[in-house]
């Protein structure tokens, strides 16, 4: 299973762009990169998924360099409601389970 490494925590002011980088040096050819968001007292929620280059949706962007050994989740103009734990997961289709690490605790300050 590809292991991921993320910063334990990050702080940001409202309105700023936040970039959370995840390292996954032993990512396999068929692995996808998926990010989940978890608010206190709630289950994780899917944010974005990608395989290579750049993916953008209404919530975030995901940047993946050519070697795919890392990825960066970008949250534009964060607000207080973006305070949450963000998990980076790497895995492939099939029966190999995705493994959640400890995630990155993002605190947005007014």
């Amino acid at each position, binding site marked *: 299973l590809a292991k991921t490494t993320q910063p334990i925590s990050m702080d940001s002011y409202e309105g700023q762009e936040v970039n959370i980088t995840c390292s996954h040096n032993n990512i396999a050819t068929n692995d*996808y990169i*998926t990010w989940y968001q978890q608010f206190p*007292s*709630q*289950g*994780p*929620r*899917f944010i974005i*998924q990608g395989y290579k280059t750049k993916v953008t949706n209404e919530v975030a962007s995901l940047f993946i360099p050519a070697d795919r050994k890392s990825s960066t989740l970008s949250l534009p103009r964060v607000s207080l409601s973006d305070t949450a734990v963000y*998990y980076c997961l790497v*895995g*492939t*289709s*099939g*029966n*190999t*389970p*995705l*493994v*959640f*690490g*400890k*995630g990155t605790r993002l605190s947005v300050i007014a």
Partner: protein
Amino acid sequence: EAGVAQSPRYKIIEKRQSVAFWCNPISGHATLYWYQQILGQGPKLLIQFQNNGVVDDSQLPKDRFSAERLKGVDSTLKIQPAKLEDSAVYLCASTNRAAFTDTQYFGPGTRLTVL
């Protein structure tokens, strides 16, 4: 569309007692997962069902934990007897495909406290 439902939301028991959690996945979702999330850590997969069959239960402590998914819809996770270290949030998730890269929809979880 209704989300994943779980009950109860909170449960407090003493060690060595038994407890059961219930999950109702999103309608039509064939795959159901149970996770254990200890405070400060990410969710850990306990068991995965595809319809009413077990796909992966390699991390389920089978001496005390059991799970079933009758008729391929609702699922129940049981702990008997509970230990102090079982204090955690138990999350249920579902997806409409077996591939792990498909979006998993999580319920709100059941917070278990074992005294």
